[in-house]
């Protein structure tokens, strides 16, 4: 499919370009010893590495060995053949964004957020919404252009949708931290179903966030965007603003 002239092959860079060096660590459920070391080497070779250097083999408990292994791989990927949806927006600074909200929308953007289901970890939604923000980046509550309502953790999807409707939310932020047994997937899917039933889908900007969330995953579920680790409040603020402007222009160009 891709033009061979445009191929851009890349592989991991250790000490020199294209040496394919990868560092890995894992535990094997056997005590350390010559056989355990050989097992680790064989395992790493089965993964496709041409060389395997066991840097560490230590007992992590009586029946477990902890390994740090370096391997080299010939595998490469063509960067140009990769198509990943990304949130692409021109990011505005704090003051600029507030000014643009006033200029383009002429009102505050109402955002309701929560960590939903049985998940009790408010850390993510707090980082994005609370006044203080995260890593020096102000939270949505701090923006004069936003009216932000953080419902906290363990909020049922039904309640989140109800409160969002009551407040006339422009955007709903859903945080999912606990991902054991794909709990987050089920819960997020149920949220989207509910939004469809309530007629919010396609109107209200729906955003999913969490340590194991990415944009493609969120799109697949039916959200407008997904934000993973390292997301700053300003990323979310900018996305919500730009999406609202797009929708507004789509209606009255």
């Amino acid at each position, binding site marked *: 499919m891709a033009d061979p002239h445009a191929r851009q092959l890349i592989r991991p860079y250790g000490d020199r370009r294209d040496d394919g060096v990868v560092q890995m660590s894992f535990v094997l459920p056997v005590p350390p010893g010559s056989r355990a070391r050989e097992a680790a080497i064989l395992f790493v070779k089965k993964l496709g590495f041409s060389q395997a250097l066991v840097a560490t083999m*230590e007992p*992590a408990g*009586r029946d477990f060995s902890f390994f740090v292994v370096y391997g080299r791989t010939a595998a490469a990927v063509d960067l140009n053949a990769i198509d990943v949806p990304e949130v692409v927006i021109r990011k505005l600074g704090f003051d600029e964004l507030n000014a643009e909200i006033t200029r383009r929308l002429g009102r505050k953007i109402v955002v309701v957020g929560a960590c939903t289901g*049985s998940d*009790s970890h408010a*850390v993510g939604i707090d980082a994005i919404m*609370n006044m*203080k923000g995260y890593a020096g980046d102000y939270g949505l509550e701090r923006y004069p252009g936003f009216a932000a309502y953080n419902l906290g953790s363990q909020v049922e999807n039904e309640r989140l949708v109800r409160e969002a409707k009551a407040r006339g939310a422009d955007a709903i932020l859903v945080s999912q931290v606990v991902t*054991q*047994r794909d709990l987050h997937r089920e819960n997020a899917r149920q949220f989207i179903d509910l939004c469809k039933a309530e007629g919010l889908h396609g109107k209200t900007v729906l955003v999913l966030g969490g340590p194991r969330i990415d944009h493609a995953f969120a799109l697949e579920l039916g959200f407008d965007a997904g934000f993973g680790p390292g997301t700053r409040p300003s990323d979310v603020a900018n996305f919500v603003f730009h999406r609202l402007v797009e929708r507004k222009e789509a209606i009255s160009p």
Partner: protein
Amino acid sequence: MEPPAEPSLGEPVDYGVDTLPDLYLDEAQVLRCRELAARVVQGVFDFIDRHTTVSIERTVLRLLGIAGAGPRGVPLCNLMVDRIRQVPGALEKGAAYWYGRALSARKAASPLDLLDAMSMVLRAPPAGEDEERRLRDDVRGETRAACDELLSRVRARAALRRELGTGTPPLKYVIVATGNIHEDAEQARAAAQAGADIIAVIRSTAQSLLDYVPHGATTEGYGGTYATQENFRILREALDIESRKLGRYLHLTNYSSGLCMPEIALAGAWERLDMLLNDAMYGILFRDINMKRTMCDQYFSRRICAYTGLVINTGEDNYITTADAYEAAHTVIASQLINEAFARRAGMADWQLGFGHAYEIDTARPDTLPLELSQALLVRRLFPRSPIKYMPPTKHKQGDIFFSHAYDVMADLVAATTRQGIQLLGMMTEALHTPVLMDRYVALKTADYIHRAARNLGGELTLRRDGLVVRRAHEVLDRAEKLLAETAADGLWSAIGKARFGDVARQPDGGKGLDGVAGRAPDYFNPFLEILEGRAS
């Protein structure tokens, strides 16, 4: 009046706080803070002393042997208390009273028969005066026998701990959270072999909101493993075996929080756990549990902890995962003093109080090391005879596990230098998932090194009187005193309503579990409480 925990149930540890650098604290100010905290707590005890809760009553029934589960796994004590609640004014007399009535109506009955008998006596006219006295005496005798058995169990735990000895503080605390108790036991043993002193089994997400304690061994959980009495037993047994193999006593801890604080405390004590997370305000602030419910439940659960020599860990570290750690440092101190005052009212000794705090100041700030040192030293100095539970960074962690590991090393350094009693080890994958085996191993290996390297560092240092560490400690204590004064003036409930703690506001009649609170009738009967409060003859 206040029966202190038997010294034989646990040993005060000498943390050598006198040899740590002086913070030049004003002792009169510290005393004022404690007096203010006592006033804060006093305002709430007027309520606690006049009320009971469904969880307290279920705990009494559990002690009396109603520990099984009925159809569909519903605990029998829940069935009984729910039946009592159906009759207006009945719970106010105490479940033990109805237990006694049911027992005298049907001798030597099975728990299910007792449930039937209870329905009958709940609708029957009151017994005669002699009969009332006799049945109360009978239940008192039964309670005393159960308490004797409870004490003999916890004495056995204390004896094993003395025989084998424990690790050197800071005790290294790690969590297991597979959801399957048998897998937890396997991981706990591996962690112990790698140097862990304390194993915590994280509870399944949202167990704190269940108004019952699940029954039996469990192999499915989300983000953790259900706290059940059988799960406690399985893990304690695994750790007993491993303790003997290693020649070092391994502590086990769980969570006496949420809607079943007293029941978990009893189950934990019975199965010889060593510690429990138990905070007077955590459930209110972070789980939105009703404050009246929590106040009653925390008191009863702490009475059990006091009686059975359990060490509690308080949850102030949570304040600085919601609020900013630098801005909210004084709320941690104020809350610790309030937790201390509550614990003292429940008869707990200093060695049982593992006050919580954490290494959580934003890494983007300058001078976080002296600031964390200041806070850790301040806590250590305010509570010189208490273990102190020191939590690792969590809030500002991201996916770079190598940086995360360096971040944890700084917490190890401060913990060792300031001689914290219990250190939860940071995991380099904190921001990613529940710890995998190698995360725990790397954390333990590193903490072992840092503790060995820095254990005596604190004794080598003198701090500048006009320096950042000392000035910061004074500032935090000043603000804590101010907050305590406001809280004492407003009353604790109103202070929580104003989001004074953890940036979270709650209302007295809001939250979960208020319908499980009942007034105590003048003839309220709770023979377990009589023993716990030292009122029994």
